[in-house]
C-alpha cells in the first residue's frame, strides 16, 4: 500500500514537471497572440517569412485532394486555388500542410499553420476560437447513397433506424445527429473511409456537401445523391478560410482576395471545372502500380521513423531499466512512474501530445520529428521493461563473481550482465521492433508522410478504398517478415557463440 502511494506520488511529480512549464508557455503564447501589437503585425510576419502555411485535409474533392500533375503529386481543388490566390495577393509563397480534418483548428491554435481552408463552416463555436474570412462559397448538404437502394430513400425520415456516416468534427455530423434523430450516426475522420463503408454496406448513406457528393457520384457509377432537406442557416452552409484569433491584417488581406474571386465568379467558371478535370484524370489511371512512388515514399518514412525510434528507444530504455534497478529510491520511482505512465496511455494520444503540446513550446518542430520523439519515448518504456526482465534473469552469482574480481558495477553490467541479458531478451526485443514498424503508422494522424498516410492519399486520388489498403498490408507484412527473418538469423548466430 505504502509502495503504491509512493508510486502515485512519483507519477504526479513527474507529470507536473512536464505539464506545468508547458501550460504556462502555452498560455503566454496565447496572450501574445491576442495582443493588438501582434494582430497588426500578423501580415507583416507572414510577408517577412515569405510563405503562408495553409493546412488542408486533402480528401475532399472537389475542394481539396491530390492528383498527379506531370508525374508529381500535387494538392489540387478549388480551396487550393483560393489559397494560392490569397498567398499570391499577399506576395508570398504558399505551403500546403495536409492533416486530418479534426487536427486543422488545433494546428491553427498551436501555430503549426497560419491559416486553414478545407471546406470549413464558420459555426459560432468555431468563431470563438479562430477568426474567419467572409464566405467564399455556399452549397447544399446532401446524402450520398448506393444507386441500387436509391428508391428506398425519399427523405430524411427514410433513414430512421439506418446508419448514416459523416466526417467527425464536421457540420454534417451535427446536422445528421440533430435533424435525423432516429438515424444512427457513424463518424470517421476520413471521407474516403466513409465512402468505402458505404460501398461495402457498412453504412446506408454518407452525409456530405453537394459538390463533393456529386464528385463521388460522377466517379462511381454505383453511387448517387439524395436531398434530405437539412435546415441550415447561411453561416453554417457557407465556407470560409480560418486564421488565428486576432490575425486581423491577414483576414483583411484574404477578404480582399475573396471579394475579387467572387466578383469574377472564378469558383464556378474556373476552379470547379478544373478540379473535375483532375478527378476524371485520376480515376482513369487508378491502377495501384501507377502509384508506386506514393508507397515507396511511405516505406521510406516508415523505415526512417522505425530505425531512429529503435535507436533512441534502446538507449533510453537501457537507461530507464538501470534507473529502475537503482538503489536510490527517487531515481527508481521516477523510472517506474515514467514506464507505467507511458505504458498506460495510448500511442496516438502521445503522438498528438508531443506534436501539439510540446510543439506549442518549440514552434518549428516538424511533424516527422514530433512523431519520432513520441514513438521513441513510447518504445523506451517497453524496451526498459524487456531489458529489466533480461537483467533480472541473470543469476546474482554472475554479478558477485564479476564484483569479486574487482570490477565496478558499471563494468560488471557492461561486460558480464548486459551481454547475457541481451541474448535472453533478443526475441522479445525483436518483437518490439516489429511492433514498432506497425505502430508507427499512427504518426499519420499528425500528417507525417509514412506508409499509412500515403495509403490515404492513394485512396483519395483513386477513389478506391480497399485496393490501396491491401497493397499497404502486403508491404507492412513484407517489412515485418523480413525483419523477423533477420532477427532469427542473428539469434541463431548468438546461440552458436
Amino acid at each position, binding site marked *: 500500500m505504502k509502495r503504491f502511494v509512493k508510486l502515485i506520488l512519483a507519477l504526479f511529480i513527474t507529470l507536473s514537471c512536464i505539464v506545468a512549464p508547458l501550460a504556462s508557455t502555452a498560455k503566454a503564447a496565447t496572450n501574445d497572440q491576442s495582443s493588438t501589437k501582434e494582430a497588426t503585425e500578423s501580415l507583416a510576419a507572414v510577408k517577412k517569412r515569405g510563405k503562408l502555411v495553409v493546412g488542408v485535409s486533402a480528401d475532399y474533392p472537389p475542394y481539396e485532394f491530390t492528383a498527379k500533375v506531370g508525374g508529381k503529386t500535387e494538392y489540387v481543388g478549388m480551396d487550393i486555388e483560393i489559397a494560392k490566390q490569397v498567398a499570391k495577393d499577399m506576395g508570398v509563397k504558399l505551403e500546403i500542410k495536409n492533416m486530418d480534418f479534426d487536427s486543422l483548428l488545433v494546428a491553427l491554435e498551436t501555430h503549426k499553420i497560419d491559416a486553414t481552408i478545407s471546406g470549413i463552416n464558420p459555426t459560432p463555436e468555431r468563431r470563438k476560437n479562430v477568426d474567419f474570412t467572409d464566405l467564399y462559397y455556399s452549397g447544399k448538404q446532401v446524402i450520398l447513397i448506393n444507386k441500387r437502394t436509391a428508391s428506398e430513400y425519399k427523405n430524411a425520415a427514410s433513414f430512421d433506424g439506418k446508419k448514416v456516416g459523416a466526417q467527425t468534427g464536421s457540420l454534417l455530423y451535427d446536422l445528421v445527429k440533430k435533424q435525423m434523430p432516429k438515424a444512427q450516426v457513424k463518424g470517421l475522420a476520413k471521407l474516403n473511409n466513409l465512402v468505402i463503408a458505404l460501398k461495402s454496406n457498412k453504412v446506408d448513406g454518407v452525409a456530405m456537401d453537394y459538390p463533393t457528393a456529386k464528385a463521388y457520384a460522377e466517379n462511381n457509377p454505383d453511387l448517387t445523391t439524395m436531398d434530405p432537406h437539412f435546415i441550415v442557416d447561411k453561416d453554417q452552409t457557407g465556407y470560409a478560410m480560418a486564421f488565428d484569433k486576432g490575425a486581423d491584417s491577414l483576414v483583411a488581406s484574404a477578404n480582399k482576395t475573396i471579394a475579387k474571386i467572387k466578383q469574377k465568379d472564378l469558383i464556378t467558371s474556373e476552379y470547379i471545372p478544373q478540379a473535375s478535370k483532375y478527378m476524371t484524370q485520376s480515376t482513369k489511371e487508378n491502377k495501384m502500380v501507377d502509384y508506386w512512388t506514393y508507397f515507396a515514399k511511405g516505406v521510406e518514412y516508415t523505415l526512417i521513423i522505425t530505425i531512429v525510434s529503435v535507436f533512441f528507444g534502446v538507449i533510453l530504455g537501457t537507461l530507464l531499466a538501470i534507473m529502475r534497478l537503482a538503489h536510490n529510491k527517487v531515481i527508481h520511482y521516477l523510472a517506474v512512474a515514467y514506464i507505467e505512465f507511458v505504458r498506460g496511455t495510448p500511442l496516438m494520444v502521445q503522438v498528438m501530445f508531443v506534436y501539439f503540446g510540446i510543439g506549442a513550446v518549440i514552434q518549428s518542430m516538424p511533424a516527422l520529428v514530433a512523431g519520432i520523439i513520441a514513438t521513441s519515448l513510447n518504445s523506451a518504456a517497453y524496451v526498459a521493461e524487456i531489458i529489466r526482465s533480461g537483467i533480472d534473469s541473470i543469476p546474482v552469482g554472475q554479478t558477485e563473481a564479476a564484483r569479486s574480481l574487482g570490477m565496478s558495477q558499471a*563494468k560488471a553490467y557492461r561486460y558480464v550482465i548486459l*551481454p547475457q541479458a541481451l541474448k535472453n531478451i533478443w526475441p522479445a526485443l525483436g518483437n518490439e521492433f516489429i511492433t514498432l514498424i506497425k505502430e508507427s503508422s499512427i504518426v499519420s494522424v499528425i500528417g507525417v508522410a509514412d506508409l499509412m498516410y500515403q495509403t490515404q492519399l492513394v485512396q483519395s486520388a483513386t477513389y478506391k478504398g480497399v485496393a490501396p489498403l491491401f497493397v499497404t498490408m502486403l508491404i507492412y507484412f513484407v517489412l515485418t517478415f523480413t525483419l523477423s527473418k533477420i532477427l532469427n538469423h542473428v539469434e541463431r548466430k548468438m546461440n552458436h557463440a
Partner: protein
Amino acid sequence: MPNLIEIKNLKKVYGQTAVLDGINQEVKQGEVVCIIGPSGAGKSTLLRCFNQLEQATAGQILFEGQDITQAKDQDLNQLREKMGMVFQSFNLFPNMSVLDNVKIAQIKVKGTTDAAATKKAEKLLAKVGLLDKKDQFPQSLSGGQQQRVAIARTLAMDPDVILFDEPTSALDPEMVGEVLKVMKDLANSGMTMVIVTHEMGFAKEVADKIWFLADGNIQEDVTPEEFFAAPKTARAQEFLKKVLY
C-alpha cells in the same frame, strides 16, 4: 607472520536473529583456515562479509590494515581485486570462452594488454590442467572442470588471499578430488586461503587452523589435530559425532 585479515567484533543481524554475534579472529599471511560448522551457522555469511558481498551490521574487517567495511567504490574494487573468491556454483561467465573468462578481469580491471593476459591465462589453465579446453564454453565443461577454471580466473588477479565458499558442495562425488588437488597445490605454494567446507578429510590434511562456527560465534580456533582428536566444546563434540559417524 603478520596478520593479513583482522576481524573485530563482527556482527550480522537478520531481522531479530544475530547470525554472527561479535566475531574476533585473525588470518595470518600464508595461513590456510577452514571454517567448519553445522548448516545455517553463518559460515558463508562470514566469508561473504570478508569481501563485502554481504554488509556487516557492526564491527570491522581490516584487510592489509584497511577497514573493508567502510571502503567505498574505487577502494572497495581495489580491495576485492586482491581478495579472490571461488563460489559453490562456479559462476563462470557463460557468454565467454574458458580463456576469456580468465582474461577478462585482467584486461578490464588491471588494464593488462591482450597478449600478456592471454599468456598468463594459458599458464594458469595449464596449472589447473585445462589448457586444452581454453576455446570451449563453460557449459560444455563438467562441474569439476568449471570449478578449476574458476580458480584459475581468481588466480589471474594475483590475489593476496582466496576465499572458497563450499567449492566442492555442488560437485558430483567423483569430481571432488580433482578440485581439492588443485586447492592443495595452491596451499602448498604458500597462498593464504579461507575455506568454508564440509570435506573433513581435506580440512584435516591441508588446514593450518580450524574455525568451528556455531550459534553465532567461533567456538574453537585450533589446529586440525587438536580439533579432530580432542574437541573442547560440547557443541563441537556433538557436531563431529554426526559428521564422522
